[in-house]
């Protein structure tokens, strides 16, 4: 097994290639190249922080429909599928709310300032997004902005793992900022540490297939003049579409296993929005989860292995 890691999208990116026998350096190098190139394509297509991305062009053109490439269409469709599966708890039209809360640039930039007050945008509504397959266009209602943060990173991890594994016929793991996807048949499950933050203790689980994702209100935070609770309160990136505000429910972190990283991140994000109803709804969705409440108590859902208990 071999691999490499680097920093991009304000997070750690890791690619591991396994399989029988030693992995040649050229395979490891090629795997990293495949992941990097895909990330560049995704960023050019749907980055909210690049004015020249297709997503920002669509946002700025609302309510007109704009012609976009197949990657952008696929990523928007993925985000809409997440909204459907969660009854709108994961809504890609919260982009204008994130901007209003000050999250309008790379997180490293946002953290170094107090975000200014901005007008409250119209309510999120994922049903006001149109994907015109016949003409290859995407559009959104006026006043809304798309943000694919809950699905695009996980989609990239899924797709990158699939591409590398298919290209080299080896089991592959791709981790992008906590979204972990595996592809190919490994002799043993991958060992993945599950923690609330990079420096937290957590526990280690085996990942045989599918994906793992963690969402938390504790890490991606910044100071905002419109933050929850006070005039200059702290904001975080998990927005409840029903209120347009950062979630304030009883859960602070959710880690979910699902058949893909996209589904895992969809449900880990939804769990924070669902709050007290999360365990039941996750069980109904057929995924496994590890939930951490505000006091640090851990609750396991589904077939999540009962091993470590440290948050």
């Amino acid at each position, binding site marked *: 097994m071999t691999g490499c890691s680097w920093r991009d999208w*304000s997070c750690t990116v890791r690619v591991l290639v396994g399989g029988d026998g030693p992995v040649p350096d050229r395979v490891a190098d090629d795997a990293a190249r495949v992941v990097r190139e895909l990330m560049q394509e995704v960023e050019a297509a749907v980055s909210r922080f690049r004015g020249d991305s297709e997503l920002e062009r669509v946002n700025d053109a609302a309510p007109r429909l704009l012609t976009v490439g197949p990657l952008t269409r696929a990523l928007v469709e993925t985000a809409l599928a997440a909204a459907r599966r969660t009854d709108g708890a994961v809504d890609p039209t919260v982009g204008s709310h994130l901007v209003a809360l000050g999250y309008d640039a790379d997180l490293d930039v946002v953290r170094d300032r107090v975000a200014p007050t901005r007008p409250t945008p119209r309510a999120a509504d994922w049903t006001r997004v149109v994907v015109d397959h016949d003409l290859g266009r995407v559009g959104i209602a006026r006043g809304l902005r798309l943000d694919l943060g809950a699905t695009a990173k996980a989609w990239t991890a899924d797709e990158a793992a699939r591409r590398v594994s298919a290209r080299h016929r080896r089991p592959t793991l791709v981790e992008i900022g*906590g979204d972990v996807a595996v592809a190919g048949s490994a002799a043993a*499950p991958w060992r*993945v*540490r599950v923690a609330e933050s990079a420096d937290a203790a957590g526990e280690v689980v085996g990942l045989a297939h599918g994906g793992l994702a963690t*969402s938390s209100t504790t890490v991606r935070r910044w100071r905002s003049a419109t933050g929850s609770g006070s005039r200059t309160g702290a904001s975080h990136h998990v927005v409840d579409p029903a209120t347009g505000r950062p979630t304030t429910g009883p859960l602070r972190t959710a880690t979910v*296993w699902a058949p893909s990283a996209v589904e895992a991140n969809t449900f880990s994000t939804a769990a924070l929005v669902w709050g007290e109803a999360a365990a039941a709804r996750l069980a109904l*969705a057929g995924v496994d989860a590890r939930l951490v409440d505000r006091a640090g108590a851990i609750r396991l859902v589904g*077939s999540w292995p009962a091993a470590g208990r440290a948050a």
Partner: protein
Amino acid sequence: MTENPRRRVLRRARHATAGIVITAVAGTAGLAAVAADATGASGPTGGPTTTDTGSRQDPGSRRDASTGTGVTQAPAGQPQATTSAS
């Protein structure tokens, strides 16, 4: 005793009619059975029907019965990757 020709005609007509009815009933039953087999429908005792009640299971929520859950107890060794908020 010889049968009255008129009675004979009537009797044969009744037999023919009964035969047609029996054949029609049997044919209808056969067609119904073929149709039921083709559509997967079943009788009133239960089983699958073709009626769409709008309660299809979300395909994304089904587990792969051959592989089950993908998260397990960790094998021995150091972690190879991390899922955490970033």
